[in-house]
């Protein structure tokens, strides 16, 4: 298995990203100049996105056994890079008043993106682990990234330690699972069929156990109950842009890996695995929403809600097994995109008003925002309603997809859980909205003006526009997704 030159072409996005990081690093080495480093990273990522866009038409290359570069991969490469860009822009303004060593942050961000790209393009355990770990490693750094206010410094440290220890343990689970699978099948590619006992009769249970371990690892990264405990603390502790990255790209990339894994190894054929995921889905939906119910810290609310959103996604995942057909994969894909948009948006609003020295992550800080800054409030409201799955927003279409997949496969229990969960969800989303429309009260709250940071506002407006447009007329995205999803099967 040698890499020919031809193989390099599909790897363009990955290579460009890597190159970007290297250049950025050299740039730092040459001269610390915040803007330029950030600029290099952003432009590089944009190039990566564009290159994958160019590669996209009818792309379907298996580059070495490790990486599959098909339209689906490239689609998510684009999504990843764009999200990374927007997060980078948000971070730029967030970190700008940090006086020392703020450039490296962008290196980490770039590295993390590399990991994400590898993940979305992996159909082999080795590449998967490689990507996951690259992503996590850089995230440790981002989570622990030094910031000014004493409180947040200690908290980011705590968050980092928790994340590191637990995620390392999770990787341990995953690796052990993979090892068992390898022992079973003698191949490390996803497509290796599991249930042939090989010549030695390690039976069904063995494979099931292996998959369980593997899935637990994934479940941790996706913060699915009961492996969700770290989520709120890490979200709360880490700097907002890091949280954003963790919550969006980290999750989405992981879910793509899981999707490929489940689809290519017919893992759900194992009844026990199926039921396990079933349980985890119901548990995540209900627990996530319940935990958020009376929460007053914005980051924690979003953390808990992300738990339930991952639960919603599992519904589609299970549906994909029940009924052959693209709907469920499209549902997952669409929902991931929607989730990306609305989470970045929601976190973005928080980080645009915050800075590394002072974060406004309590719901009270947003009291009366609607009358202080209607546009920002409108954007925030839009994001929250979208998370709640209300029409006019992309979140509703996503919900519709999930519902459709669920109905198609007659997963009634899950649908009931979904409805109850969304019902509870409404309560805490609307609570935040209500705070914003309350009469304004001038307490230690932030001053915000678009003039201060055009770039971030532009990103937010862009996201808002996407939120609404795709919510009202999703057809373009739908058709793209319909096309790329066909590559998964």
């Amino acid at each position: 298995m040698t890499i020919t030159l031809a193989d390099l072409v599909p790897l363009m996005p990955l290579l460009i990203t890597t190159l970007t990081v290297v250049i950025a690093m050299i740039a730092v080495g040459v001269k610390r100049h915040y803007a330029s480093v950030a600029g290099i990273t952003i432009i590089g990522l944009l190039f990566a996105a564009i290159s994958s866009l160019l590669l996209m038409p009818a792309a379907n290359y298996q580059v070495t056994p490790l990486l599959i570069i098909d339209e689906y991969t490239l689609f998510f490469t684009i999504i990843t890079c764009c999200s990374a860009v927007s997060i980078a822009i948000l971070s730029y303004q967030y970190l700008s008043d940090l006086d020392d060593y703020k450039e490296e942050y962008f290196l980490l961000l770039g590295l993390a993106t590399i990991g994400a790209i590898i993940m979305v393009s992996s159909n082999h355990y080795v590449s998967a682990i490689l990507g996951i770990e690259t992503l996590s490693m850089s995230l440790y750094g981002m989570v622990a990234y030094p910031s000014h206010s004493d409180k947040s410094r200690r908290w980011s440290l705590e968050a980092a330690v928790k994340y590191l220890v637990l995620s390392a343990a999770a990787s341990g689970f995953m690796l052990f699972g993979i090892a068992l699978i390898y022992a079973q099948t003698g191949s490390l590619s996803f497509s290796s069929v599991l249930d042939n006992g090989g010549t030695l009769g390690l039976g069904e249970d063995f494979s099931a156990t292996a998959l369980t371990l593997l899935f637990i690892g994934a479940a941790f990264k996706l913060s699915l109950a009961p492996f969700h405990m770290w989520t709120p603390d890490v979200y709360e502790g880490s700097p907002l842009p890091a949280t954003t990255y963790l919550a969006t790209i980290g999750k989405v990339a992981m879910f793509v890996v899981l999707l490929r894994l489940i689809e290519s190894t017919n893992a759900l054929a194992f009844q026990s695995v199926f039921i396990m995921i079933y349980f985890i889905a119901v548990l995540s939906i209900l627990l996530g929403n319940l935990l958020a119910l009376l929460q007053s810290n914005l980051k924690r609310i979003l953390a808990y809600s992300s738990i339930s959103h991952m639960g919603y996604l599992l519904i589609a995942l299970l549906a994909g097994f029940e009924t052959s057909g693209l709907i469920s994969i499209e549902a997952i894909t669409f929902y991931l995109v929607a989730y990306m948009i609305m989470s970045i948006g929601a976190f973005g609003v928080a980080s645009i008003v915050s800075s590394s020295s002072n974060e406004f992550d309590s719901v009270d800080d947003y009291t009366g925002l609607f009358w202080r800054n209607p546009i920002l409030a409108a954007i925030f409201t839009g994001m929250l309603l979208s998370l709640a799955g209300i029409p006019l927003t992309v979140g509703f279409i996503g919900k519709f997809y999930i519902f459709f997949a669920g109905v198609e496969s007659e997963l009634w229990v899950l649908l009931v859980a979904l409805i109850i969960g969304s019902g509870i969800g409404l309560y805490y989303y609307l609570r935040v909205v209500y705070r914003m429309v309350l009469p304004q009260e001038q307490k230690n709250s932030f001053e915000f003006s678009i003039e201060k940071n055009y770039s971030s506002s532009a990103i937010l407006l862009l996201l808002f526009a996407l939120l609404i447009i795709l919510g009202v007329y999703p057809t373009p995205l739908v058709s793209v997704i319909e096309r790329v999803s066909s590559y998964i099967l």
Partner: protein
Amino acid sequence: MILVYLISILFVGGLVAWLSERVDPNYPRIVALATVLIDLVVMISLLGVDPSSGGWVASVNADWIPRFGISFYFAADGLSLLLILLTGFLGVIAVGSAWDDIHEKTGFFYFNLLWTLAGVIGVFTALDLFLFFFFWEVMLIPMYFIIAIWGHENKNYAAMKFFIFTQVTGMLMLVSIIMLGYLHFLQMGMFSFNYHDLMKVEASGTIEYLMMLGFFVAFTTKLPSVPFHSWLPDAHSQAPTAGSVILAGILLKTGAYGLIRFAVPLFPESSLDFSPIAMGLAAFSILYCAKVAFAQTDIKRLIAYTSVSHMGFVTLGVYAWNELALQGAVMTMLAHGLSAAALFMLAGGLQHRIHTRNMQHMGGFWGKVPKMAVVAIFFSVAALGMPGLGNFIGEFLALLGAFQSNILFTVIAAFGLILASVYSLWVIQQVFQGEYKADKFEDSHLLDLNRREMIYFGAMMIGLIWMGMYPQSFLNLSEPVLIELLNNTQAVTAAVVRN
């Protein structure tokens, strides 16, 4: 295209109203009034259009989300037209009632008002079930804001309750809708949410029954009917007057409309099986809410409960499913739209004047505000079903028709007429008769209705008298539609009856 214009005029008008606030806080209301008036004119112009095949006028059909066969399909028939006109009319009334009532954040208020109206019109004209559901939810958000921002002491709770009730039950309907679409896929080999296509879908008994329940729950929550009614009193007592007008006058009617247009025609068989339960529920909610209404001291809560009680006649009429009863239901929707809106405006007017909704603090206002008293008596008398006024026609026809399909529940429901007189007269007694308790509140602002208010009330009175004295002009509009619906379901129901 007219229908699209209708909706977009409101959407745009809303935005303009919001922006115009920056110029002058008095502009929004003018913009809003202009917008609704224009809309009303356009609506009336629709009456001139002669219906194409199947009695549908101004139908628009474009692909929206082809992946699911979802299309952007609007059309209006007589029934929709009646309700659109009601919407437009009450839209004007609502703007008027807000005219002096809303002072802060006027721009955003009228934005929400107009967007709610837009959503409602969408609901009344959407013939693609996805589109229908889309608007069904869209109209909630602005309404939520209206209650949550301009509401009274307990607004957060009320708004939240309103939103969650309708949303959660709405999701049940969504599941049913998707079921229908998927069944259509299984049977016809393609996705479609087109009303006419889904009519053709066959479903096995249980599945159909469950889907029907999904619709029923969603609609009876909006209607509302016991046991899904308890959001209404809170919403009404907390909402600003204009909000109550929209809520009672129009939003509740979307539920009734849904029952007539979707719940029964899509699932005729199971609806037939279900009709005794539905009618029983209706009868119960008529009596129960009439009784609870009598027990209230908060005048807005009281009126809210009475509207639940009155909407019971609609449910009764719909599930009797014969022409008389359906016409009755439709007339009740229209007449109650006016009378309830007017009563809420009166209650709001009182609250605006004396800053309390507690009837125990009122009394003997007749001497102080004779005009208001006369208006109040007129509308409460209308509400208790005085012949010659719209409500009578509606309730009488509904009962007359219902009697032919279920005697027992009709008779029970008829007792609602007695209770209606009990609570209506009780309100009059409490507020306008008896001796004047000036000590309970400061009455410096207790002035009689001004000219603007008189115009609005006068318009509504004329409307009610018209409905009561010559209902034919309304019945003619809805008749072909209902006949059509009846014919569509006739075969099935007949078959069921035979077995």
